[in-house]
């Protein structure tokens, strides 16, 4: 008996988890969350489709028809989502064979349009997601990314159309840097207020958002400021010397900003985990008391983290103007800043996670427009996004649904510590 008991005791050293499991483990719950979200959103698609609902009225007379209508409705919707974001497989195939036979890329470019759109859409998401994630790492909840994107975009577009006569290799970087700086300064105000007076950054950044929105209204509508002489609320076109180059030729909008965004993710990773400044920011985020004890300045790090977060948000705006729109008009950001909060959560505030989550969000946004053309309300995409985030935020729920065993998670991610922060 005693010997048996001895065997049951857990070993001091746990069995090492195989490499593939360690790599896939963190992806499992997000994957299942996304899957579940698609299933539930499917229900909403059914519910929003009158044809399906009327078919269900005759469920008992003709169950076949009801099921058929359901399948049709859901498959049309998700099919459109797929075609709008990845592309039509047969078009892609035809494009590829045309390329192989004649060397003509026109067909392929056309077929790759959805994919290009997905990647293009993910650029601002990557930057904005990194902005939120960097704030989270310092224990700061930067709700103001939306406003910072706008400020960055405004600054960048101003440089883009107002300064002429520069070669592109000066004009473009200048426009980007000014956009980043503007975002940084704008959000550092909130950081400074927090560090100096303890005013909570959530409140500050929300208020700063309103300031940014109204400031942009003012600037865009007045021709003497940044508006057009016609009175339409948009800025003039930027000069081609400030364009972020489009890499795949017309009509594809895929531009160099995508690689900049990936570079930014790598840089953020390096900064947070391989530099003393990043170490301080993470320490302040994880335990401000211990940070103070260890001789770090909590206030300085609040301002620094907020500033860097704003710089990344500013770059999101700059990339949109310089790479996609080439001007800035009303409705410039369709909520990138707010989506990015969810996105940073989805990516567990890790640069790699943020990039993956941003690709997902970019893809969904690209697919959404095609879905809309097929008559499916765009709200479905928002429901889908909301569902994904909800399930990601409640891993216990996903585990419950799929009967997963609780792994002893090594949670390094620190979220903000509520309002007392």
């Amino acid at each position: 008996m005693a010997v048996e008991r001895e065997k049951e005791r857990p070993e001091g050293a746990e069995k090492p988890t195989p490499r593939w499991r360690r790599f896939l483990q963190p992806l499992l719950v997000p994957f299942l969350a996304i899957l579940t979200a698609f299933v539930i959103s499917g229900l909403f698609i059914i519910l929003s489709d009158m044809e399906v609902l009327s078919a269900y009225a005759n469920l008992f007379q003709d169950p076949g028809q009801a099921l058929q209508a359901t399948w049709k409705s859901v498959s049309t919707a998700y099919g459109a989502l797929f075609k709008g974001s990845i592309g039509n497989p047969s078009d892609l195939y035809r494009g590829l064979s045309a390329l192989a036979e004649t060397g003509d890329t026109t067909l392929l470019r056309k077929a790759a349009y959805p994919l290009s759109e997905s990647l293009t859409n993910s650029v601002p998401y990557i930057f904005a997601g990194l902005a939120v994630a960097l704030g989270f790492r310092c224990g700061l909840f930067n709700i103001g990314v939306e406003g910072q994107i706008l400020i960055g975009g405004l600054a960048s577009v101003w440089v883009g159309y107002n300064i002429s006569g520069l070669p592109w290799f000066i004009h473009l970087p200048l426009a980007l840097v000014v956009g980043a700086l503007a975002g940084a300064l704008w959000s550092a105000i909130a950081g400074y207020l927090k560090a100096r007076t303890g005013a909570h950054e959530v409140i500050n950044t929300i208020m700063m958002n309103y300031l940014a929105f109204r400031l942009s209204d003012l600037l865009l509508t007045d021709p003497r400021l940044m508006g057009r002489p016609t009175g339409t609320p948009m800025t003039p076109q930027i000069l081609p010397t400030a364009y972020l180059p489009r890499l795949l030729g017309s009509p594809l909008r895929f531009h160099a900003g995508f690689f900049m965004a990936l570079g930014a993710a790598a840089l953020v990773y390096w900064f947070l985990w391989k530099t003393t400044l990043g170490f301080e920011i993470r320490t302040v985020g994880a335990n401000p008391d211990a940070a103070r004890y260890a001789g770090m300045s909590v206030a300085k790090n609040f301002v620094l983290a907020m500033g860097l977060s704003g710089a990344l948000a500013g770059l999101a705006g700059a990339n949109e103007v310089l790479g996609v729109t080439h001007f800035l008009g009303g409705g410039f950001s369709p909520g990138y800043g707010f989506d990015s909060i969810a996105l940073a959560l989805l990516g567990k505030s890790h640069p790699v996670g943020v990039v993956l989550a941003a690709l997902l969000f970019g893809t969904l946004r690209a697919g959404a427009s095609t879905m809309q053309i097929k008559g499916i309300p765009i709200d479905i995409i928002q429901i889908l996004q909301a569902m994904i985030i909800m399930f990601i935020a409640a891993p216990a729920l996903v585990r419950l649904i799929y009967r997963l065993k609780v792994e002893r998670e090594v949670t390094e991610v620190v979220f903000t510590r509520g309002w007392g922060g």
Partner: protein
Amino acid sequence: MPPVLELRGISKAFPGVLANDHIDLALEEGEIHALLGENGAGKTTLMNILYGLYTPDEGEIFIQGRKAEIHSPSDAIAQGIGMVHQHFMLVPVFTVTENVMLGVESTRWGIFLKREGAAQRVQEISEQYGLKVDPNAYVEDIPVGVQQRVEIIKILYREADILILDEPTAVLTPQEVKELFVIMHSLVQEGKSIIFITHKLKEVMAIADRITVLRDGRTVGTTKPEKTSLEELASMMVGREVILTVDKKPPQLGEVVLEVKDLKVRDDRGDLAVKGISFDVRAGEILGVAGVQGNGQTELVEALTGLRSVEEGGVHILGTDTTHATPRKILEEGVAHVPEDRQRDGLVLSYPLLDNLVLNTYYLPPFANGIAINDRAIIAAAKERVEAFDIRTPSIFITTTSLSGGNQQKTIVAREFSRPIRLLIAAQPTRGLDVGSIEYIHQRIMEKRDEGCAVLLVSPELDEVMTLSDRIAVMYEGKIVALLPAEEATREELGLLMAGAQRLPEKVVA
């Protein structure tokens, strides 16, 4: 007659740990049964099972010889089991009676409280067991020791026969501990039975009728105080020989390292917590600051380490004025700080162990070149320190949360002692640690003193202060009420001074 309470073969596993492994325990009527064990030995898990907070994986509970099913604290209370938690569950703005009634209120017409009956009952219980509590006092106005009695009254009011006291002496002054022991005696004389959870050996020897020792989730054995010794109990707890005394050589006094003059410091509420104190610490000596928690020691230490601003007065470290210096400046003067609350201030629990080992030296070479962190140097240093300071961990990459309290404290000690230091400020360095770790930390502190480091030791544990210190300062209400050589101090006198008694004038050493 069957035991009042019997636990048979209780097992409880948590992911990765077997917290309780077939534990047997029998509590006889009218006895004080001490449950002794280091942190993590499974005491708390066992009691939480008994109190219905956890369900055991295996094993049975018998009360008065009958098998009992306990699924929730209310089941436990119904079976006559009551628990006084280490952290009190009292509402400060309520009176004693209101706190006692809470949850079992008797009412008139369902909504109006009937206080009178309850107050009378509280009075009766209080007199019957010698608890001395005013039923109408507000809890926030009464001292901690009395608050604890309110907790005891609470469970007696619910007619408990089996009382579980979880580390009840941790928050008490030596006098209060004595009073608690008197109360415990009168409780058992009235037929109650008590399980007394602790890791303090001396208390166990003083009060327990029987002692059960747990280690690594298993019962090591049950014994009686008269049949055992402190040394034997300690080695039962730790699983090896333990040296309880620290080898103390005569101090080799050097220059004055820390000089504090008329220091005044405010607490978080803005009240003066340190009300003008002066002392100095020389190289090669340990100055112990004794005192009940909350008499300004925390604020004193925070002010000395730059974490709290100084209201008035001055602090000099090796001649440098550090009164208003930043924490980093003070660190760089060669001051090591073992903080009172290691999990709040001393460690980032979510970090891997290696980061905590360089938490305040990460920016210095070789750990950093400019702003770039040199992982290789940090890993090398971490491995070395884990080895040198005997930190028990499977890896230096493991999160610090998963280390035991003793190993967490060793991590802090390793970090602080690996820097060149001239002054060590240790606040409650062994709080909540097990015997083995206490022994280790004490030896390390003594080594530092012998190397010529000045040591300021702040601790509410009289034993600790008396074992280590060369001189002892007693703090009471923000002032140093006595400063005397350690060999002159007696437990009784220190205890009285800590409680606010005046010292006889001729014995005061300036």
